[in-house]
């Protein structure tokens, strides 16, 4: 009859053991990690500045959230930053530009990543909440319009064409509606979800706030868009440059007003208007009063360019990087 008590005891003991195991795991891992991270640091370009940041023994926690487009850069930065031997613990969430802003306004994060400029209503809410912030540029992304690789007609479009294709006008769109020489077949649309900064940006510069075609397939997962365009000859879609780079062989990028998206055209701004900066908004209070935040961003601005290139974005020109650093310097204690 005592078997269940025995059982309860066993459960308690085993969960204690499990936790204990985690605890000791953490310590051991920390030791082995240093070794692996040292190796990693040696092989990485970003480690040059590692020495600088580890000099000052700053401690603390920095938390951020926001755009999933910016997330790969942030991940690379956090990876390198923690490999530099710092005691600062950085966490970054991926709630999307809008979702991240909400947390930033609520004062739950120190910084918020955004794949578009901050909106007026967000500025206003931040003001009401008493959050002062500074905008930093991290990298450039070329919002890339893509078509199926069998599509040999629409490889070059003007901004007006794009608007004509994407704006809802109550008709079912065929390629021949845009140019009579093109096939008389229905266009199939793939677009990022409405919560993403990518959608917002496209909406602003191409659609000029008019409604997007209603039969577009929206997805928060850009891989779904890639697969959609790969699978349909009449498909058109758009997403961040890194998703195009990763699938270069299977989809075709559309040249906008004669300019193809490449690292050079995006950096120079020639790929206009779809070349866009990626931002992070940092709380002034955290920068001023929390050495950990300052330390992380000092590292981040130094390495954002290199990390952006690695994950498929385009680094800022040197003078823009210098401007960003100068902005940060103002908060130095």
């Amino acid at each position, binding site marked *: *009859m005592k078997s269940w008590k025995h059982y309860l005891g066993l459960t308690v003991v085993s969960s204690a053991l499990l936790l204990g195991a985690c605890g000791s795991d953490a310590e051991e*891992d920390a030791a082995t990690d240093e070794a692996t991270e040292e190796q990693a640091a040696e092989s990485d370009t970003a480690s040059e500045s590692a020495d600088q940041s580890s000099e000052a023994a700053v401690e603390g926690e920095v938390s951020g959230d926001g755009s999933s487009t910016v997330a790969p850069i942030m991940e690379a930065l*956090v*990876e390198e930053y923690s490999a530099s031997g710092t005691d600062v613990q*950085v966490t970054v*969430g991926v709630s999307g530009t809008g979702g991240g802003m909400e947390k930033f306004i609520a004062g739950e994060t120190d910084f918020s990543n955004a794949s578009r400029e901050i909106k007026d209503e967000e500025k206003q809410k931040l003001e009401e909440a008493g959050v002062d912030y500074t905008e930093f540029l991290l990298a450039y992304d070329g919002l890339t319009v893509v078509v199926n690789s069998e599509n040999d007609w629409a490889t070059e479009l003007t901004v007006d064409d794009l608007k004509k294709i994407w704006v809802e006008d109550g008709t079912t769109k065929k390629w021949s509606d845009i140019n009579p020489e093109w096939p008389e077949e229905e266009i199939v649309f793939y677009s990022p979800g409405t919560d993403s900064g990518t959608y917002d940006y496209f909406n602003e510069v191409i659609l000029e706030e008019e409604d997007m075609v209603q039969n577009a397939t929206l997805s928060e997962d850009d891989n779904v868009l890639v697969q959609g365009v790969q699978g349909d000859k009449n498909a058109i879609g758009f997403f961040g440059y890194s998703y195009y780079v990763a699938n270069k062989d299977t989809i075709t990028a559309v040249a906008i007003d004669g300019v193809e998206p490449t690292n050079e055209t995006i950096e120079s701004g020639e790929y206009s208007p779809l070349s866009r900066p990626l931002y992070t908004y940092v709380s002034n209070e955290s920068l001023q009063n929390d050495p950990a935040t300052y330390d992380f961003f000092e590292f981040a601005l130094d390495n954002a360019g290199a990390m952006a290139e690695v994950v498929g974005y385009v680094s800022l020109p040197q003078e823009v990087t210098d401007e960003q650093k100068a902005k940060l310097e103002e908060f130095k204690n």
Partner: protein
Amino acid sequence: MRITEQQPGVSKRYIDQTSVSKRMDGRKITNTVFKTLFFMATLVALLVLGILFYRILSQGLGFLSADFFQNFASRFPEKAGIKAALVGSLWLMAVVAPVSMFLGIGTAIYLEEYAKKNRVNDFIRMNISNLAGVPSVVFGLLGLTIFVRALALGNSILAAGFTMSLLILPVIIVAAQEAIRAVPQHVREASYGMGATKWQTITRVVLPSAIPGILTGSILALSRAIGETAPLIVIGVPVIIHFLPTGVMDTFTALPMQIYDWAKRPQADFQQVASAGIIVLMAFLLLMNSIAVLIRNKFQKRY
């Protein structure tokens, strides 16, 4: 109209054998048709599971190595690891298991053994069953409002653990209630008849025979908590994290969050890393479910 010797059960001429045998074929065919149909239905589920397993294993096994368990997330697929998420999920369970089981089993004992049958208690019972069907996102919002913001726990293990506990609480309560209800009334009455108090009856008679059912239900509920993503996203659990939690107030990340993040990456290699993550999560789930089955088989007692 003749009774055959081979049918000993039939002793009188009540059954018209010719008309029976006339219809028998049709009945047999109906039986076979439905048998095949239901077998196919079973097969569909198994087939899909098989395809899933094949896909996940063939994609993920290549990335499953000792390093995978020892590394943090990385921008290089070959260096990406699941350490932070795995340890985070274990911590999460360390909060969810005691909290949800204590509250859940406590509620069940109260409702089944102590509560009188009146409107208030009926209302509570009905609501608990309904809560079990509430989508997990709603529990996430609840957690965000109460634990993260009102109680200022932030996106800590504790806040996430409480949220997950709430999520699986109804399931545990219902399972425990059913297990307790399955203990026959006459056993309780025998206990009272021997002069035992209510508490003695509960701890020495009811719980010992109900515990397998309770534990099975609890473990299945816990394995649901391991796989849930939506509440974690809502309460703002980060994915990019390069340290391990040291206490329940620390920030953390969990297995499904990490897998979701990998699956969204543009590089094809990360899809395979995600598969490797799924293998870890599945192994975790299968382990817990088999423990549940084991407990049920080993301790099940019938009156």
